[in-house]
């Protein structure tokens, strides 16, 4: 079969993205939009990144998570600590916080690696076999759990030692780098590292949270992650007990406002490319199979737990990245920015855009942010309080009129999976197929 000629799907997509990017940048340069609306455009991009992460978890992998805002908060505070440290040297060295955070993350990864190498599962099975004659299953469980905990603690200790050594090295190396690099360049480098750190911190945390919680059922997982988000919020309110510069409930000030439209849009493009390629890969298709039917996926040999963790970790990464951008957009972080009510925003965006549709999420994130901010402008004097009265009514109307969201699960342009070329599949002769059972019956 001959394929019809058509424009490659990436061309219109790149065009739309370029028009959006150049339009906002040009309008800002010409002074056509105020700094406020410029900020709103960046915020929309940030919301889009965060929502894409949640769409990966809920829309594509079917794990109902209400705790996305917690990872967003971790990313925001984690990256803000680094840039603030670079400017004000609260830890004594411009890169002290950065090297600590990087070292601890690498140490944790090392600890996981070591614990993984110990083959605890196999060890546990061996212990169970050896002890099964002497003890009851419950008792074996307790004893083997204690042994495993001790081994895991040993692994963590190795990781802690390694991260301390790495910290010493990193402080030296990064200090040199700061000394020789010119300041404007270094600022961008630090911002890049901070954003990356925000993402990896959130990813690591979501891996840790997801590991025990993902085996819960759908609603229970949602509630447990909601619990995580509330715990995160409370912890942030009291964060000044651990790190004084985070200021707890008073709000963290003095974060450099380095996020710009190129940064926000660049991060969005990066996330979109990563996400699209992940979802369209064989792993992505397996993720979708987990959403559709977990048991069927298991029967087909899909490692359900691994894929859930993978999706949750990637989603956490996007949330952390978005959080980092948010922190450097406004230069001020307060725990109430990350409370439960705000935590519903990404969920509302992905449902509004259509679960399992990247295009829908992107459109919905921009629409959502502009509607919320636009209501501030449209509403007449004395009716500012009505903003959050009108918004839920919108929400209700949308849910009543269009339950599958704006786009459902359909995609547009480059996001659509490229269809494989049609193959000639030999069709078996139907007449023969039909006759066979009859022949069997007779004999």
């Amino acid at each position, binding site marked *: 079969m001959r394929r019809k000629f058509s424009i490659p799907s990436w061309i219109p997509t790149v065009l739309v993205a370029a028009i959006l990017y150049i339009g906002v940048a040009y309008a800002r340069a010409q002074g056509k939009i105020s700094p406020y609306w410029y900020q709103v455009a960046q915020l929309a991009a940030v919301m889009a990144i965060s929502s894409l992460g949640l769409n990966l978890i809920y829309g594509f992998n079917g794990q109902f998570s209400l705790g996305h805002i917690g990872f967003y908060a971790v990313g925001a505070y984690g990256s803000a600590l680094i840039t603030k440290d670079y400017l004000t040297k609260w830890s004594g060295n411009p890169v002290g916080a950065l090297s600590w955070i990087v070292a601890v993350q690498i140490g944790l990864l090392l600890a996981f690696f070591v614990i993984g190498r110990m083959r605890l599962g196999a060890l546990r099975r061996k212990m169970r076999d050896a002890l099964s004659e002497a003890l009851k299953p419950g008792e074996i469980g307790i004893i083997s759990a204690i042994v495993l905990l001790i081994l895991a603690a040993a692994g963590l200790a190795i990781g802690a030692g390694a991260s301390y050594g790495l910290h010493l090295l990193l402080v030296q190396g990064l200090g040199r780098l700061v000394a020789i690099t010119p300041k404007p360049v270094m600022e961008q480098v630090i911002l890049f590292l901070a954003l990356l750190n925000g993402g990896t911190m959130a990813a690591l945390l979501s891996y840790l949270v997801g590991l025990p919680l993902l085996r819960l059922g759908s*609603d229970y997982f949602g509630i447990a992650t909601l619990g995580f988000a509330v715990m995160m919020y409370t912890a942030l309110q009291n964060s000044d007990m651990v790190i004084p510069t985070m200021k707890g409930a008073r709000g963290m000030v003095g974060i450099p406002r380095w996020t710009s439209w190129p940064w926000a849009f660049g991060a969005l493009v990066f996330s979109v490319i990563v996400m699209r390629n992940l979802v369209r890969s064989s792993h992505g298709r397996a993720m979708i199979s987990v959403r559709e039917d977990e048991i069927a996926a298991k029967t087909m040999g899909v490692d359900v737990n691994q894929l859930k963790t993978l999706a949750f970790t990637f989603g956490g990464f996007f949330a952390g990245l978005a959080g980092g951008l948010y922190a450097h957009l406004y230069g001020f972080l307060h725990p109430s920015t990350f409370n439960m*009510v705000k935590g519903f925003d990404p969920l509302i965006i992905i449902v509004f855009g259509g679960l399992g549709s990247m295009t829908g999420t992107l459109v919905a994130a921009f629409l959502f942010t502009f509607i919320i901010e636009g209501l501030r402008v449209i509403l007449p004097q004395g009716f500012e309080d009505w903003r959050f009265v009108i918004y839920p009514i919108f929400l209700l109307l949308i849910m009543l009129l269009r339950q599958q969201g704006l786009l459902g699960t359909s995609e547009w342009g480059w996001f659509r999976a490229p269809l494989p070329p049609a193959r000639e599949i030999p069709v078996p002769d139907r007449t023969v197929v039909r006759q066979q059972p009859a022949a069997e019956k007779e004999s």
Partner: protein
Amino acid sequence: MTSITRSLASPKVLLRAVAWAVYIALGVGILWGVVALVRLQGPVFFLQAVLDGLRLGFVYALIALGYTMVYGIVRLINFAHGDIFMVGAFTSFYAITQYKWGFFPAILLAMFVCVLLNVVIERVAYKPLRNAPRIAALITAIGVSFFLEYFTALKWVFSADYITYQRPFKVVVWNIKGILISNITVIIVITTVLLLLILRYIVYNTRMGKAMRATALDKPTARLMGINVDGVISFTFALGAALAGAGGVLYAIAFPQIVTFMGIMPGLKAFVAAVLGGIGNIMGAFVGSLLMGMVDVLVVSFVPMGSRLRDLFAFLVLIIVFLVKPTGIFGEPEVEKV
């Protein structure tokens, strides 16, 4: 004789001894923890904390029952339930302060208003979504919750200020060997227990209760058996709202400061309590709420900086329970059907 010594030396007995040692260590640890708590501030302080915890738990129970019944029947996390609770508190506030009503008329009025409100919400917002994906109903519930909070925060509705609640009766405090019991506690406990008994009677001894249980078990089959499922669902919402309204009045009497956003945290805690006990289970919701109230008060009393960290501990308990028993204390394990 030899057989005894041989069996003592055998690995089986040794291992069993190790297992028992671990059990005993765990038991002693828990006992030591309780004793340490008692010794820290004296038994009076401990008992006082337990009593306050129970008082809070009884209020949580009234809210949690609404969550658990609604979830049991329509599988919807009704986020607006906490705001129904708030409306109950405000209704009684106006009845008491402006019209000088007593406690019983006020609580009945609050229950009535909440029932009306929740039934209207159910008819307008949730009923059209009965066959929609569950997430649509959840988002709608979030929307209703926002609407109730921000609409009532408008100047000409309830206003967004903190309002001091006037109790409809004088507070009397009895001192029993150092433990302070106020008549507020007594009223909360009596009202809650009374309402719970009425609820129990309705659910287990009436035709409507039977219909509710049948609907919770299997909606299509219940409909085939001639049960008016929509009516049953509305009735469940009404029942939950009545309890939440009463809970709102009692909460406002115990902690006399009300604001339109007061429903969020107690609502969430009560919901968590319902989940903790096994959602869809009335007994579980009650036990979970008592546990939640105890955790709240004990953390505030005994953990340093506890008043700032209480929410953290409350949810930590939830996650620990989830890890041990993924469907809650009284929850039945989920059966995967193929």
